[in-house]
């Protein structure tokens, strides 16, 4: 009897090794652990055994049953794992297929650059002050120390607006953000005319020139101007402010260079070059091998302009600086055609 039990166990375990899937496993279970399996047969014959043999045989049969059941569970788990592995293998994607498009919104590159500039200026204490786009000759020129017929007016080709009876004060599209200097100074001076407060503002805005639309020139363009007025503001402060700005805008190592220049509304005036951030000043196609990029115009606010803004030039000094976001974007992103900005072709806009 003991041999028979041993034989049953051996056969069961051997055949279990051949079982490969769940169906076969179930068949095996019925055959080897089912009610009519040989092992169960042994248990049913148990009553017929001599009494003294029962404990020994019973113990052997129970042990065999435990071994067979344990092997069965083990096998069942192995088959489960095999099945999962097979399923995972079959369920493999081509990860190189394109993902589904998600419609991404974007700011216009000009807005992006403008925001970058304004964010840096804001941290430096310059608050945004906005003003209108159609201006009078008075605000765009005269109050900024461009008298009628002054040669400096030739530096800016102006688009005029049709209007009758305005004499020497025609309407025009502002050629620069500087009318905002007068508008902001007058605004602040009005707060306390006898003791006008200091000013530190950024003037962003669209400007216009009577220029043909080509790869290099545009009829409209954005400008940002910074203006600081106070009782102790110097040219050295202007240099320090712009050097700080350049480091923030163009990188910690950006060096700036000042060149004397002329604008009617500042004196002294300067053009500011930043060492080319593309080549680090070594010379490349972006800086036309010069190592420098012209990015700013600046100067100390002209006494006439201070006066026109309601600030006594004997008491106050100030500086102003201006730059073009599109020009900076063109340098940064190597855009060689300024028409891309207002052309709004998706093939351009999508790249930002």
């Amino acid at each position: 009897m003991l041999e028979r039990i041993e034989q049953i166990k051996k056969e069961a375990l051997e055949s279990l090794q051949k079982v490969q899937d769940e169906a076969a496993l179930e068949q095996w279970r019925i055959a080897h652990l089912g009610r009519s399996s040989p092992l169960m047969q042994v248990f049913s014959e148990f009553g017929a055994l001599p009494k003294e043999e029962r404990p020994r045989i019973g113990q052997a049969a129970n042990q065999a049953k435990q071994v067979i059941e344990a092997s069965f569970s083990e096998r069942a788990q192995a088959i489960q794992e095999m099945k999962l592995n097979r399923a995972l293998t079959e369920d493999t994607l081509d990860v190189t297929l394109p993902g589904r498009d998600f419609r991404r919104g974007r700011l216009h590159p000009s807005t992006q650059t403008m925001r970058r500039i304004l964010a840096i200026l804001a941290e430096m204490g310059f608050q945004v002050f906005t003003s209108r786009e159609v201006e009078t000759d008075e605000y765009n020129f005269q109050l900024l120390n461009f008298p009628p017929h002054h040669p400096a007016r030739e530096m800016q080709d102006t688009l005029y607006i049709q209007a009758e009876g305005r004499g020497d004060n025609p309407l025009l599209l502002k050629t620069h953000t500087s009318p905002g200097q007068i508008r902001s100074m007058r605004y602040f001076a009005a707060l306390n005319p006898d003791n006008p407060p200091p000013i530190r503002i950024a003037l962003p805005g669209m400007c216009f020139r009577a220029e043909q639309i080509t790869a290099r020139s545009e009829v409209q363009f954005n400008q940002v101007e910074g203006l600081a007025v106070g009782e102790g503001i110097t040219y050295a402060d202007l240099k320090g402010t712009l050097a700080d700005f350049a480091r923030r805008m163009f990188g910690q190592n950006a060096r700036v260079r000042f060149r004397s220049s002329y604008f009617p509304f500042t004196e002294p005036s300067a053009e500011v070059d930043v060492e080319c951030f593309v080549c680090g000043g070594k010379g490349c196609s972006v800086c036309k091998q010069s190592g420098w990029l012209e990015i700013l115009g600046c100067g100390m606010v002209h006494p006439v302009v201070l006066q026109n803004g309601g600030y006594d030039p004997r008491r106050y000094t100030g500086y102003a600086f201006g730059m073009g976001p599109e020009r900076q974007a063109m340098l940064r992103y190597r855009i060689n055609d300024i028409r891309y900005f207002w052309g709004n072709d998706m093939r351009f806009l999508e790249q930002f």
Partner: protein
Amino acid sequence: MKVPLSWLRDFVDIHLPVEDLARKLTAAGLEVDSIRYVGLPVPETKAGERHEFKSDGIAWDREKIVVAEIYEVMPHPNADRLVLCDLFDGREKHIVLTGAPNLYPYKGQGKLPRPIKVAYAKEGATLYDGHADGQTLMTLKRTKIRGVESYSMACSEKELGISDDHEGIIFLDDDAIPGTPLADYMGDVVFEISILPNMARCANIFGIAREVAALTGQPLKKPQIREQAGGSPIRDLVKIRIENPELNPRFVLGLIRNVEIKPSPYWVQRRLRLAGMRPINNVVDATNYTMLEIGEPLHAFDYDVLVRRAGGQPVTIITRTARPGEKLTTLDGVERTLSENNVLVCDSAGALSIAGVMGGQESEITEATRNILLEGAAWNFINIRRTAREHNLPSEASYRFSRGVHPALADVGVRRCLEWMAAWAGGVAAPDLVDAYPLPPVDPTVEVTPRDVRRLLGIEMSAEQIADLLRRVEFECQVDGDTVTVKTPPYRMDIGEGVVGLADVLEEVARLYGIENIPETRMADPLPPQLGNPAYEREEHLRDILVNLGLQEVITYRPTSQEREARLGIGGEAVRIANPIAPERSILRRSLLASVLDITEKNARLRESLAFFEIGPVFVSRGNDLPDEPRKLAIVLTGKRYSQAWDSKSSALLDFYDLKGIVAGMLDALALRGVSYEPLRESPIYHPGKCAQVIYDGKILGVFGELHPTIHARYEFGNAPVLGAEFDLDLLLSVEPVYTIRPVPEFPPVLEDIAVVVDDAVPAAQVEALIRQTGGKMVTSVRLFDVFRGEQIGRGKKSLAYSLTYQADKTLTDDEVATVRNKIVQRLQRELGAVLRT
């Protein structure tokens, strides 16, 4: 302005390398745009290397390009148009073949009485090809021309890169010594310098030399005028009458007799060419040379013509404004009709020239001219500017006069020019000048202190240091304690009075000190009062919201055209540009939507779906006053709703409800609660059944909808519907947002769906409003999840299915929910005839 280095050296010693000088000039406001090397070594320009200045030109090899002299010009045995020159290059003799027409007159005359000095290039020399267009380099090679061997040549200006003249070879002046490397004899560098409007004083060689001297600390060598006069003095012969001193503050005349008109010495011609002017003859060249040299434009009259016109009377020069319709034929042969703004130089017989702009033909210098009356004057710069513009006559003279020439230069210019005429044309000047000077300018005096310098420039400087700097450019300075009294020198007109004058002088201090030497400091001034700019901040916030909703921002042109806007049915009055750059940019936009639709059309074929927005002003005419500039928001959507992927090919198109979703999302993000949407049937832009206006607090914030088919057809959009929206930004952003946040409920909600059948004409918003009203606080969310029409529910009916959320400050029982639900159903039944669908 083109400035030859050799000419600068007449007035100042220059020891700096060329690029260092250019850098100094540029930093001081004389921006060097480019450097042209004419014979001297050109710095090598390699790609990827820094070259601060645009440079070009040619170096003349010192061995291969030298001064030579021609002893004899002989005919070529086989060609009429070629000659052979017997030439000596300082070491050996050569027979040189050339086709230069200016040698023909000497052909076959045997040994010349005086050898002709030429620029001689030997075999292997690199030159510009005289026969090619533009500047093409070539190297001289040994060849045979019509049987005669040739390996070298006498050069033209074009071949040497001096000018584009290839009419003949250069005849050098007699001081050229054969064998001298040509680069040593006349190699040069030409700086192209931009002259800023406030630096008109530098629009001449001497003016630049003065700056160079000041910037490099070298002494300035002023021109020494040697006057040699003879014959009867001019004051007995010529009178001047100035009618309007405001327009003509000074008028000076000089006279020179017995000149011989011929070409100028070569060095004069070369300098004029390098400076960008064309040599004419010795007399005209003398006027141009003097103008370029010291800045005073001059005009030469044929004196004998004036004497003839005076008919026996003394010559009287009159300056006056032109009479209406008065005519004058100018030097260029054009008869010009003058206006009362133009100032004329006249004699008793009539107009002679347009003052400061261009001479008249009748009194111009000709080959036959013997006696010359020379004018040096001062004019009102604004008047000259207007006249030059009016007649479209930009000239070297009007360029200078229209920027301001100091009247003190008038007599200096005449004296200097007479000296050159005497030297180059052999005449003798009459003693003295006639000088009418009714309105001498006041050269401002300004007081400067170290405190002023510190206050504006942020640098410490003593009174003496300030005076030393300013004296370098000829300001007269007196130091008294801490005060420098500064008198403006009589060559510049850019220094004002009072606070302006102070700023003008401080600018000079900064420039001469070197702005690169001014330190960089951080502002110590107190910060200003902080003032918010909520309109700007909210606008930027709105931009972010729209980007988050998946829209692409565009920025379009403000200048547009009537035709473009007419497509959207926009008409009426517009703000018009008086001088538009093109007809399609002639008015300022009245509709932001029209601009965004133009961009949509441009992109329609490029992408399967488009979603744009723009924020910006439109322009509303107020007649002759400043226009209103209300700010708008425009949105346009069109194309496929879902982007096409490789496994899904939905053809659904964006429609009204996509746009409404964006609009609602935007308003939600702006925290605007309680907005209503009302159908708008009479918009000319939108489909009458697919258009809504957005109302808040009784005000229309904006309108949106699907474009009217008639409008759609005017664009090349393709077939997809185009959705548009336009909002009044000022109104939209003026609404105070509701920022109060509801607490998150602690108790579980009860979710329940109900569907009601109503007449098709009943707006969904009405059903929802009734549910909300009736549900009160307990119904916290009402979401429409299905709209169904079909036979089952009857024609003209629709079923609206809502998902309701019931919520309270406790766990709701079924009975409590059922009570509210029944109330809602009953109310819908009563007021809308709704039937609960089960």
